[in-house]
């Protein structure tokens, strides 16, 4: 039986992102009449592993401690070895930075074709097709991946999670040969450890270049607090050094889809919209009534944020249930 492999990192567990990969994998396996195998790199918590065994048909687990903290050369070597034995038609990964950097190299080693940030996978005449945005969000492209396996980094969080199979997949322990790493990650720092992840936030208050400096982000922080939301930014604000790079939303930043995205002094470039266009409600504060962001909003106000934000914060204190 042919196989669709999902390639997961043990340390990340079976969270929303892995569930999305599994969901996409299950759908593709169904279309191909294939088995869904999970390849897990590094130790994974028991509970997470058992959740995974409820959705995959088979699990191959390299639980070596060396694979615990991601190291590019080791993860790649392990993924290559474990995928090869399955002779997969497709290998699916998430879109965290680790998965993204593994994707093309793994494809090359398996003799396949790769693609990143895929939002839909389908088959046509036995070939795998993937959909994704192009031209900074101005267009949608569909590619036919010509070599097998198709190694695909998926926009995992927006994929529907996999349904339980009603069975429990066997977990096969595998031991892989690991090379001497040539690049060694020696330090890891988390910028925004407290609070919800931006990708999981229900409300996001985002600021752009029009804020003019780092100080207004403090006022936006208070507003975000009242709105029970998280803060984010446009690339221009990150590039200016006003806020950390991992606040960036867009084509090359976080992809978010909250219930409410409030864009303040952000023009609405297609590359920014690509990261938040799927939000349920988008609202904007911008002095320029012709700013492109207003073409994507449910509601907005064409005014100076300096006048709006303090007043809005005060009014919302009385309106939002704590």
């Amino acid at each position, binding site marked *: 039986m042919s196989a669709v492999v999902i390639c997961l990192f043990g340390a990340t567990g079976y969270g929303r992102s892995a569930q999305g990969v599994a969901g996409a994998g299950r759908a593709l396996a169904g279309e191909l009449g294939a088995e869904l195998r999970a390849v897990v790199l590094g130790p994974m918590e028991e509970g997470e592993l058992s959740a995974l065994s409820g959705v995959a048909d088979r699990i191959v687990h390299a639980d070596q401690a060396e694979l615990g903290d991601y190291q590019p*050369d080791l993860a790649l070597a392990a993924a290559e070895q474990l995928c090869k034995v399955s002779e997969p038609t497709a290998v699916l990964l998430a879109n*965290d*930075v680790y998965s*993204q*950097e593994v994707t*093309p*190299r793994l494809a*090359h080693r398996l003799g396949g*074709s*790769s693609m*990143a*940030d895929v939002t839909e996978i389908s088959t046509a005449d036995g070939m795998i*097709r993937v959909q994704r945005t*192009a*031209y900074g969000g*101005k267009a*949608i*492209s*569909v*590619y*036919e991946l*010509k*070599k097998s396996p198709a190694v695909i980094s998926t926009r995992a969080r927006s994929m529907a999670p996999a349904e339980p199979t009603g069975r429990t997949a066997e977990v096969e322990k595998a031991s892989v040969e690991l090379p001497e790493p040539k*690049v*060694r*990650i*020696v*330090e*890891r*720092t*988390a910028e*925004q*450890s407290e609070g919800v992840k931006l990708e999981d936030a*229900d409300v996001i208050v985002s600021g752009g270049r029009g804020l003019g400096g780092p100080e207004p982000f403090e006022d936006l922080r208070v507003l975000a607090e009242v709105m029970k*939301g998280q803060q984010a930014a446009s690339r221009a604000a*990150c*590039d200016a*050094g006003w806020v950390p*790079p*991992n606040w960036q939303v867009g084509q*090359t930043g976080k992809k978010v889809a909250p219930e*409410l995205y*409030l864009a303040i002094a952000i023009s609405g*470039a297609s*590359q920014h919209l690509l990261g938040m*266009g799927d939000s*349920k*409600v988008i609202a904007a504060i911008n002095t320029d009534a012709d700013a*492109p962001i207003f073409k*994507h*909003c449910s*509601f*907005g106000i*064409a005014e100076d944020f300096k006048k709006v934000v303090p*007043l*809005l914060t005060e009014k*919302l204190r009385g*309106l*939002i*249930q704590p």
Partner: protein
Amino acid sequence: MKIVVCLKQVLDPDLPARDFKIDPAAKEAQRGNANLVTNIFCENALETALQLRDKIPGTTVTALCYGGSEAEDSLRKALAMTADGAIYVEREGSSNPDPETVARVLAAAIRKEGEVDLVMVGRESGDWGVGQTGGLLAEELGLPALGFVDTLDLAATGDGGLRLRRQTDAGFEVAEAMTPVLVTITNNEANVPRIPKTRDVMMSYRKPLTKHSLAELELDSDETRGANGYYEVAELFVPEKQVRCEMVAGDSLEEQVDDLAQRIASVVNAIG
């Protein structure tokens, strides 16, 4: 240290959505009146390389591009940004070559340079944005690689190795690597590309720009020209999205913000 920075020329990403049109036969964007510009992440990479050069004596930075005839403009700009040299590989065949083909061409051009210590590419391009070329190039060259790097320095170990800082989903990571190594570069506040000085623009015409044909790289084949063995664009379309923005109502700022607050509160309170 010898650094090669790979530059891709792309349709100006700042082209407003209303002017963006697709050529359905070619399955790519229509050029129209839009400019071709150097991909921003490639310029971020070049800027990072130039700053590193200023820290490590004896370092040279060479810009490399596989592209149509106008790609020379991108290389001239790189020279004006003070790159030391440039290599232009004349593109033949498909105007949207797949990343495996591009990686093979770039790898051949890099090998011709002899020993290269550091290869830098952008994390992704501003047109198709597939972000696959860097990883494939590392494989073609047999180099270790790290993605999403924003800062490079000599390692404190003093053994000539590099200290690489990169952006992750949660924050940052620091890695150490011996050369040769490949990195893909992402943006941060320190690698915003410099604007070339008038004098450097003039000087750029005196700097060496090497040209290679595919034949010189022993890659003149139908496979290279077709450049679709890895993938092919099956469809390209502009998504239709109908949203009607309601501007807040009210005669005064007070009333307008009141309306705004009501709308926001109703969304937030519904989340529960």
